[in-house]
């Protein structure tokens, strides 16, 4: 099959490459594609079709049609006609039962026709309903393309790259190269991309090859597939030089192996020195196809008949074959034996990218093609894509065959025949967009490259209108199939980690997500960790707290007006709890506010609330014109909470600060060197025991963590995680904003009416809260406990049942080792929000009785905290 050495051939005969096809070695030359090498080895059937499993062979040799799709090294749907050979590649056919030449599923082609008309699965397999999964499994395995390798993501790497250029030229034909050269002469930064298979003439400007532009998006964004890299071009100016595409003719048997587009045969001869067939018939729609006759003769193919479709009007064309391979063609009743039929109608400008960019597309009736018009700014078209395709034949929608024994395909990707299209119109799908969705014509791997024009023409004839009336369907990216891996790119999962993160991992912590942060859930035994806090000393990383500095002469007045409680009277070095409300009086965030001096406050927020709070502060600062300066120091500072009866002892060992209860009272804020590190020491007690929060520069975090654990070893210190903290705070009935409250909760009903200072002139949300006060509380957040010894805990979100109906919900629940029973927080109707009220909780598939508790379960009077 391989011809002798020819000038200009792309193969390098001195470079032998071997790959395997179905496990058997195939020899190839460097410069071959897998497809050309297989053809040279004698392979003619390259695939089985989507629905009827008909044999298919090389058709376009340019990576457009679906006929040569195979699985290469586990990657499905590779067009082997343009896939360069590589040593050791493993190539397998796909969508075939048994073997390409003998596909068991080909029976659907023989008997399936009447039973499987277009859209049959919408109608025939819908009953009985229960059987659909079976039908579906069968259909999926019977029809379709290659199998996706579910583990491919780990095998192959995809990258995304961004490039900004002055000019991007898409298409490396003569016009594209000229446009790029001109841009370069103008001194512009230009890149040319070309999909191949022919190499691009290089003239000193950067060329990306083989690379496929898959669409033009807003802002002149052009993603380009370049091997395993998706290059996202942003170009000031885009030149589209995508040329024109040969269109197949519609006649019975038009998909037989041996029926090819003229350009495909030319590439076989010119690039890979292959003889495309022995005896050829050429049906030429333009000068290019006509000129091919000479090339074929030179390559040793006998050309038995050439028809110039522009001069000679054929009425009937029909191809016959055996075992799917072409044996003869009948032209207006004259039968000619041949094994190669080169047939094409007009060359249709490949305008899809232009249409995606917003160009209008109009029909040129004289030449029978669609041409782009009204290009948007920044987009230029050059060469054949503009409609400069020479004199072309306007061919009929379909050619009838004399005997009409075989199918005539309008869409080879999805196996849609001319009869299917006619039937769809007869069924009422008379708009092209509807028919496209019903028949799936133009929706296959070629994305309409080879079926758009023929299907519009067929539609125009069947509906007795014309192509201009029918118009085109909307062009959407991608213009060519693109692997999902390429679109996904490299997986990036941004995570915030505290400066002690690695220490937690060293200690065997199980990490969990809280917003963007990774935090220790526990170090193995959360209940034991909670117990250590009660008994001796625990240490928890609370670096994720949002931390803000609020500075300025008006800082106190600013906070006073933001929060429902008082801050103007907060003394220097003292701390107060605050709940931030929305204009609607809803709970937004909470935290502590420490006054560091007259004009400086240190505000902490929830772990996930920092950004919202800082935006909220900046907004009101601008609205009120306070001139307060807010700085986010969340990342700059690490923080730990040292909690438990031994915490004072440990802190005292590490600092010169007087840590006695008199000098460092509950809710005092002091600055001190702790183990040599500058710290802000906040005496607060989220977990209910005597405790100190230390806030200090992040870079010292590992050092201080290690020092605290080391120096506190004899005091029984142990790190505790988020889970232990949740148990402990629940024992104190401290709420978690976002867990126990939602976007509708207000402080009056969420158990914090004492927080709201009505005597203040104004604060954000005051008006709304006054209304809530007037109407009275409807439901309230309360603590509850279950019977001692009950082993299980209600689910968070679990139902509170009132008079047999849902009347409330559990927001938090844990087993308290301290109390020996399940405890929690729940929203209940107001009439049940009193000490000791009985509530019914749906759990364990039944109901359990709980009791409302309004005071903290642990240390209800806060004596522990203040001691």
């Amino acid at each position: 099959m391989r011809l002798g050495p020819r000038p200009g051939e792309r193969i390098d005969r001195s470079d032998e490459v071997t790959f395997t096809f179905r496990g058997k070695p195939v020899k190839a030359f460097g410069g071959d594609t897998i497809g050309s090498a297989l053809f040279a080895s004698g392979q003619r059937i390259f695939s089985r079709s989507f629905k009827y499993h008909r044999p298919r062979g090389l058709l376009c040799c340019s990576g457009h049609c679906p006929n040569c799709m195979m699985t290469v090294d586990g990657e499905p749907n590779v067009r082997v006609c343009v896939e360069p050979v590589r040593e050791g590649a493993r190539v397998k056919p796909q969508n075939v039962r048994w073997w390409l030449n003998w596909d068991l599923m080909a029976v659907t082609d023989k008997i399936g026709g009447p039973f499987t008309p277009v859209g049959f699965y919408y109608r025939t397999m819908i009953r009985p309903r229960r059987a659909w999964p079976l039908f579906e499994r069968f259909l999926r395995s019977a029809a379709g393309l290659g199998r996706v390798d579910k583990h491919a993501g780990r095998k192959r790497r995809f990258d995304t790259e961004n490039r900004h250029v002055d000019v991007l030229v898409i298409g490396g034909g003569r016009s594209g190269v000229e446009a790029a050269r001109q841009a370069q002469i103008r001194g512009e930064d230009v890149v040319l991309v070309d999909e191949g298979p022919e190499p691009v003439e290089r003239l000193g400007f950067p060329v990306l090859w083989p690379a496929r532009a898959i669409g033009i998006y807003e802002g002149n964004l052009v993603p380009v597939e370049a091997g395993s890299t998706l290059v996202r071009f942003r170009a000031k100016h885009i030149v589209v030089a995508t040329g024109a595409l040969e269109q197949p003719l519609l006649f019975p048997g038009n998909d037989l192996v041996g029926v090819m587009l003229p350009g495909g045969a030319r590439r076989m001869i010119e690039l890979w020195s292959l003889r495309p067939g022995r005896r050829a018939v050429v049906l030429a729609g333009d000068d290019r196809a006509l000129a091919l006759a000479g090339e074929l003769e030179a390559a040793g193919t006998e050309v038995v008949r050439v028809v110039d479709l522009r001069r000679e009007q054929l009425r009937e064309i029909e191809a016959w074959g055996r075992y799917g391979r072409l044996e003869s063609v009948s032209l207006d009743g004259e039968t000619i034996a041949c094994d190669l039929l080169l047939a094409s109608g007009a060359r249709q400008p490949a305008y899809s990218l232009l249409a995606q960019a917003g160009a209008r597309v109009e029909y040129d009736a004289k030449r029978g093609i669609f041409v782009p018009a009204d290009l948007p700014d920044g987009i230029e078209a050059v060469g054949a894509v503009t409609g400069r395709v020479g004199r072309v034949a306007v061919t009929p929608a379909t050619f009838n065959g004399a005997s009409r024994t075989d199918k005539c395909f309008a869409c080879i990707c999805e196996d849609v025949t001319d009869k299917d299209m006619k039937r769809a119109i007869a069924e009422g799908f008379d708009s092209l967009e509807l028919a496209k969705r019903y028949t799936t014509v133009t929706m296959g791997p070629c994305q309409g490259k080879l079926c758009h024009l023929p299907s519009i023409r067929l539609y125009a004839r069947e509906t007795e209108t014309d192509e201009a009336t029918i118009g085109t369907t909307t062009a959407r990216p991608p213009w060519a199939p693109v692997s999902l891996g390429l679109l996904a790119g490299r997986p990036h999962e941004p995570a915030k980690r505290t400066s002690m993160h690695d220490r937690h991992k060293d200690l065997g912590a199980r990490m969990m997500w809280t917003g963007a942060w990774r935090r220790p859930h526990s170090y193995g035994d959360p209940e034991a960790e909670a117990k250590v806090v009660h008994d001796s000393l625990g240490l928890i990383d609370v670096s994720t707290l949002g931390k803000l500095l609020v500075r300025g002469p008006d800082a106190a007045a600013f906070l006073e007006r933001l929060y429902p409680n008082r801050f103007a009277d907060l003394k220097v070095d003292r701390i107060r709890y605050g709940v931030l409300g929305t204009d609607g009086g809803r709970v937004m965030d909470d935290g502590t506010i420490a006054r560091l001096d007259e004009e400086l406050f240190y505000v902490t927020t929830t772990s996930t609330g920092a950004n919202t709070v800082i935006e909220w502060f900046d907004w009101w600062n601008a609205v009120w014109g306070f001139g307060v300066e807010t700085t986010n120091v969340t990342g700059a500072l690490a923080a730990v909470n040292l909690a438990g009866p031994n915490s004072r002892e440990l802190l005292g060992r590490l600092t010169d600060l007087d840590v006695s209860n008199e000098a460092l009272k509950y809710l005092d804020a002091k600055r001190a060197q702790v183990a040599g590190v500058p710290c802000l020491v906040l005496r607060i007690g989220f977990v209910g025991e005597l405790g100190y929060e230390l806030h200090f520069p992040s870079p010292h975090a590992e050092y201080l963590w290690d020092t605290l654990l080391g120096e506190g070893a004899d005091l029984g210190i142990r790190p505790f995680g988020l889970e232990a903290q949740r148990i402990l705070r629940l024992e104190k009935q401290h709420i978690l904003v976002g867990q126990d409250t939602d976007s509708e909760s207000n402080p009056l009903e969420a158990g914090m009416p004492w927080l709201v200072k009505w005597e203040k002139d104004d604060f954000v949300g005051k008006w709304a809260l006054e209304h809530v006060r007037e109407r009275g509380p409807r439901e309230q957040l309360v603590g509850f406990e279950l019977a001692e010894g009950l082993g299980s805990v209600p689910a968070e979100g679990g139902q509170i049942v009132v008079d047999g109906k849902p009347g409330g919900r559990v927001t938090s629940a844990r087993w308290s080792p301290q109390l020996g029973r399940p405890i929690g927080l729940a929203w209940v109707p107001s009439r049940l929000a009193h000490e000791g009220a009985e509530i019914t909780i749906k759990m364990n598939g039944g109901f359990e009785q709980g009791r409302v508790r309004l005071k903290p379960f642990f240390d209800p009077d806060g004596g522990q905290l203040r001691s």
Partner: protein
Amino acid sequence: MSELDFLSVEAARADGRFRPVARSPMDRRLREARAEFEERGGRLVATRIPGEEEHALAIRDVTHLLPPPEGTEPPETHAGFAALEISGPGAGTVVRRLTEMPLDDLPAAGAVAHIRSWILREGDETYRLLFEQEYGHYLWDVVVDAAEPLGGGPKGTP
């Protein structure tokens, strides 16, 4: 102590018992690469990483070289930031694989691998990324991963 000293790495004091040492958020990743460290002004700095000679394209932790040069938005408290440097042939490609920002007008701020970052040009094929320190592990991993296929790898600051 003055009022905002608790924000300052420089305010740490070593005395007999205590010897505070500051670490970069990328410290652990450097350790895993078996880096050699040296204490410079109370900070641990990776000076050498085994095999670094093989990488013409180098990724360096330059957090200790903060604060950043003039012209960038001054970070209020520089302990909140980390910095890494990408230098050598292919540095631009690495950066372009992580950000959509055009690199012809630096310094600039924008998303790098989905997080907010400042990009500075320190030389022809030398870029610095400046970002919130809590993303130190993440961005180090992402940058090293992006540099690997281009022959890049971590390097110390001698």
